[in-house]
């Protein structure tokens, strides 16, 4: 464990909050962000999103995660009581470190996005391969 306190990777974010798109709402998912020496790990709660309905875009240092939800068809039922509303998810982050975009891994597991962003360049301790003669 390093003693120094590193600059916070997620400097700012544009929180989309709640927004209407094609008569479907868009929510900001709850996230945990963990930093290790080599990676930034993002866990996001996106229940109802399948792997195929997930979109992760890294443009320069702006990371966007997006998920669309197939809402259940409940034609023959009345909504008796509601604590949540179905909708899509979107959240945007600005990253401080350079990311090795070739090695980004994104996987949905039980409605949770597991996103691994490996650090690149000076953000990471460079390992120099030693050639044998």
């Amino acid at each position: 464990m390093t003693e120094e306190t590193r600059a916070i990777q997620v400097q700012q974010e544009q929180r989309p909050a709640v927004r209407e798109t094609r008569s479907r709402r868009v929510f900001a998912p709850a996230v945990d962000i963990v930093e290790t020496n080599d990676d930034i790990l993002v866990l996001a709660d996106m229940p109802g999103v399948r792997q195929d309905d997930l979109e992760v875009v890294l443009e320069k240092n702006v990371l966007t995660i997006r998920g669309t939800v197939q809402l259940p068809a409940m034609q023959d039922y009345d909504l008796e009581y509601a604590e949540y509303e179905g909708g899509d998810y979107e959240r945007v982050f600005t990253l401080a470190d350079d990311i090795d975009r070739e090695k980004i891994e994104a996987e949905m597991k039980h409605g949770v996005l597991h996103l691994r962003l490996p650090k690149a360049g000076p953000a990471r301790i460079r390992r120099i391969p030693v050639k044998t003669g």
Partner: protein
Amino acid sequence: MLEPLFPWREMRRMEREMDRMQREMERMFDTFFPRRRRWMEVEFPPLNIWTNNDQAIVTAELPGINPEELELSVNNDTLILRGKRLVNHLPEGARYQRRERFQGEFARSLQLPFAIDADKVEAHYENGVLTITLPRAEADKPKRIAVHAAESNGKEG
């Protein structure tokens, strides 16, 4: 005007209508004052209840749990949902930069509008959404009473 046959049913219908109007109002309100953090609003997990005359469907947004550790029980008209979402084990040298997701144990109890046939309850977990189908107990269902026509009515007198 005809008196409603089941006054409580009429009341439920009115309640539902009120709920619907309230949700509509909240929806309008939200477009002007967006809810910033939806996940802080309600207890974990948030639930929806759908009903018709024969059964209720409860859906819960429960991402990232082990469904085998989920405990579901039904007693008459009450559903109890218990479980836990474990703390992430961080690798050596890792630090949280942000921590918003629910962690820990949860228990929710809800009363449904009718008694449930506990033996026929089914639960299904997919993509982090739990769907519980709760059939209404036979004894609780309103009975349809057949009206038999008298023989003499069959022919025109």
